[in-house]
């Protein structure tokens, strides 16, 4: 199967005053199209930094990231934004909905950016799918955490992404709500055939993916297949 993400010798350091902190060091892995993939590790191990680099939200100091066949190191901010808009979906721990937009408007932003005409219809369908058909005109602050994350799920799938990055998708939710959201995430993912990359602390959640990459202190410890297969 074709590789949708290829990470090669990736490194990232941060400088604060005269101190240099290496956050990621020599990370190499790839992800096949349509696969589910988890990045796990303790706090401060570099998981979120790795996710940001893979999605083109940040630039590495060394190594390369090839996303959907494009080496993103060479792209400028706007080219990377366009790549994300066409191919990438996101889910964040703290939902990251735009507070001034209604649920429906939040979902259709990626479609509108592409200039899709019937964005409203698609948005309604997606919100219906995630069980929020009666919450279309609600603002994020009028929704519960679980509802907000479901709106985020609908938004993540709205542009039919090839790859979806989820950063601690259940981190801000109680267990029951978290389980429901995860269930929904995997269902939607299966329907759409999207590649899914999850960053998580939750080993149970990680076990539901096909491969797990373990990080510690910015270094890759293992990259193994899970039992699920």
């Amino acid at each position: 199967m074709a590789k949708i993400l290829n990470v090669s010798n990736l490194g990232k350091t941060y400088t604060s005053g005269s101190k240099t902190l290496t956050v990621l060091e020599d990370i190499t892995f790839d992800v096949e199209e349509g696969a589910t993939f988890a990045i796990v590790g303790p706090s401060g191990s570099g998981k979120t930094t790795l996710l940001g680099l893979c999605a083109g939200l940040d630039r590495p100091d060394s190594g390369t990231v090839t996303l959907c066949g494009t080496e993103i190191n060479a792209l400028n901010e706007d080219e990377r934004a366009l790549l994300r808009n066409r191919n990438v979906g996101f889910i964040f721990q703290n939902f990251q909905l735009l507070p001034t937009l209604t649920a429906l408007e939040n979902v259709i932003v990626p479609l509108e950016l592409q200039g899709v005409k019937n964005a409203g219809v698609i948005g309604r369908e997606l919100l219906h799918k995630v069980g929020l058909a009666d919450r279309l005109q609600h603002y994020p602050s009028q929704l519960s955490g679980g509802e907000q994350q479901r709106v985020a799920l609908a938004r993540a799938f709205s542009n039919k992404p090839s790859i979806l990055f989820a950063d601690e998708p259940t981190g801000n939710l109680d267990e029951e709500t978290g389980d429901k959201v995860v269930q929904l995430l995997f269902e939607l993912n299966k329907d759409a055939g999207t590649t899914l990359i999850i960053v998580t602390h939750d080993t149970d959640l990680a076990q539901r993916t096909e491969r797990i990459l373990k990080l510690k202190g910015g270094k890759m410890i293992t990259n193994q297949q899970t039992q699920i297969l």
Partner: protein
Amino acid sequence: MSGNNQHNKPKGATAWLFKMAWRDGRASLNRLLLFMASIILGIAALVSIQSFGNNLKKNFKEQSKSLMGSDFLIVANQPPTERVQHIIDSLGGSDAEEINFPSMASFSNKGATKLVLVRGIKGGFPFYGELETKPVTAAAEYQDMGGALVDATLMLQFGLQAGDSIKVGQLALPILGAVTSGPGSTGISASVAPPVFIPYRLIDSTGLVQIGSRVEYKNYFVANPEPNYVQLAKNLDAVLDAEHADLDTHESTGRQLGRRYDNFGKFLNLVAFIALLLGCVGIASSVHIYIKEKLASVAVLKCLGASRKQSFLIFLIQIGGMGLVGGIIGSAIGLLLQQAFPVLLQEFLPIELTVSLSWQPLVIGPLLGFVMSVLFALTPLLGTYYVSPLQVLRIQEGTSSKVRRAGLYVMAVILLLLFAFSFWLLNNVRFALGFVVGILVVFSVLTGIAVLFMRAIKRFFPAQWGFVARQSLLNLYRPNNQTLVLLLAIGVGTFLISTLYFSKDILLAKTAMEGSARTPNLILLDVQTNQISDAANSIRDNDLPVIDNIPIVTMRVERIKGRDVNDIRQDTTSTINRWILNHEFRVTYRDSLIATETLASGVWNPKFEAGGTVPISISDNIARDAQVTEGDTLVFNVQGVLMKTIVSSIRAVDWGRMQMNFSVIFPTGVLENAPQFHVLSTKVPDDKTSARLQRELVQKFPTVSIIDIRQLLRLVEGILDKISWVINFMAFFSILTGIIVLIGSVRNSKYQRIKESVLLRTLGAKSNQILRITAFEYLYLGLLGSGMGLVLSLIGSQLLAIFVFKAVFVPSWGPFLILVPGITLLVLLIGMANSRSVLNSPPLQVLRKEGQ
């Protein structure tokens, strides 16, 4: 990049930007409305004043002919000389003639007297405009019937009716009607000496045209077709000047009158500009805090695939749109306001003011609303361009060097635009530059103080203080603090408001009257030398003091530094001020300086000992305009006799004080025998004594003019009251803008503090503690901001007083007693109102509600 990712702009991309701007703005409407209010007020002030100024200019231009009553005229202080008569004849002869002079008039049946301007008219004057009388027929009949037309206000004042009689000098004649309006018969001078029109042929019978009288001879012309006035003036000026006569055209009269109202207009323009600038401060501070909170959303948008340009444009459209709408509403309010100005100002204007819509402010208002909003919002807006999508995952503190560099460019553009705009309003490079540099200095000083203040608190932090006091101090310098932006907004706001207040003080104080025991209030003009002792005795017989007895000799300048004034007139490269060459100087002689004078340089000569050149003293403005200094020579023509003088001293004179001041003073021992008249003054206790003395003096000395300063004072006070009303009204506009700006800035800062307050609340802080933490923070900011603004304004006003208004500045207590506590209280109250929602609702509810 792969082919499918090539950038191609989707259809409707621009429409989407507008849609997003609207969606986002809709949810933040409350905050954006406050921001729009500052624009609306600033633009309303600017548009109303600009439109009024334009209308005034237009009216002066349109009505210049009716102001003069003819196309042009030749005027002199003596009957036309042979050469002047020759010119008059060559122009086809005049169409009307006038002889006028000030004189005391008495109204036989009332026993009252009043200084009037007697205008003897021959011919169909006025040819433009109308001599409006009551009854209407009086204007056409008075010349044939040998009657007088008397100023309507004067008639009302003295209870006169048509049919009563008026006595001017030796001539008594019936009053045929009241003049309600006529060319050049409004304004302050008409109130001091109201016009009385009589037939020209009766002037001689008054017996008042004698040597030493101040008489003006006018020849009016109607030109058809109108000549090229510039060419006409060029042909005639030199000859007429040499004969001490002048050519006035309706164009120049309109211009001159228009110019007289220019200073007033300039001050109002400045006020409007300050109002607009305050609006801009409002924009900058509101948008700064507003955009700071939007950065997280912008990062999300970028994550979802919005480009830098798109996310920047969404907010640019939002802010620009608010500016444009604010500009349109402001212009509409401004145009409504300008309708009120003619009602307020009609009394000071010599013309009928008609208000018409002019397109300029209608275009400029919305345009300025848009440009100012965008420009002053640009620095914070740049943040949306440079914010990284990574912020979605982690908060990045600090400003990137790119933002700082772009901010500097924006600052340069703002300064350039401010300069261009103030130059457009003030029409003076020096003032415009001073204004921009002043604003820059104020901003820099306030920024410096804010930074020092934060460092000082950090360094000398009182760790032993209680929890509440420590928290409120911490708020001033820890991350997410609002110290700099609020200190700037409060400081600049206070600075502008109090500078306006102080300038008003300076302007009004300059015209204020002093009323000490030695200040005369009845002045006798044109007292001939042989009348002095009799006149003085008359005053003393009424138990009144003779306060001043000032001799006056009239003369003109003949040569400056050895050069003939005729040569200087023809020398186009000469920069000597023209008025010096044509002016008839009223000169006095005395042996000492008076209270309103100080010696700026040179030596004061009390007495002239025979032999050598006469040492004189001149005022600093003459030295400047005639370009002479100590040791330079001036030759004066003293009624036919040439007299060589040398400048021995230069005096600074306070012209604003109610005192007879002179630009040229001779020492004693020179002019005692020259033809001269005197000014006597006294102080009368009440109206009754004044009327009795005036009656007596007019009977004894018909050529003497008397001015009752108390009447004049009442008149000037009335006018000052109205001017201060207009100034206060405009200042109020600026202050209102300032307050709206403060409310906007402080209200917007609510969102900075709310999460922290809720967190404290969650951790168990009592209402009282949260309230006190907030109150102290805003108290510090309010006190420091307004205090610094006031101190800077004191310095600024002192500079304004010295360089612009040329007056002494004694600050009034108003700003100290009202502004600083008032603004601090305002900041404190809004700050405390900000935390009200935190105190009254459960923490979670607050977070959800404010998150919207």
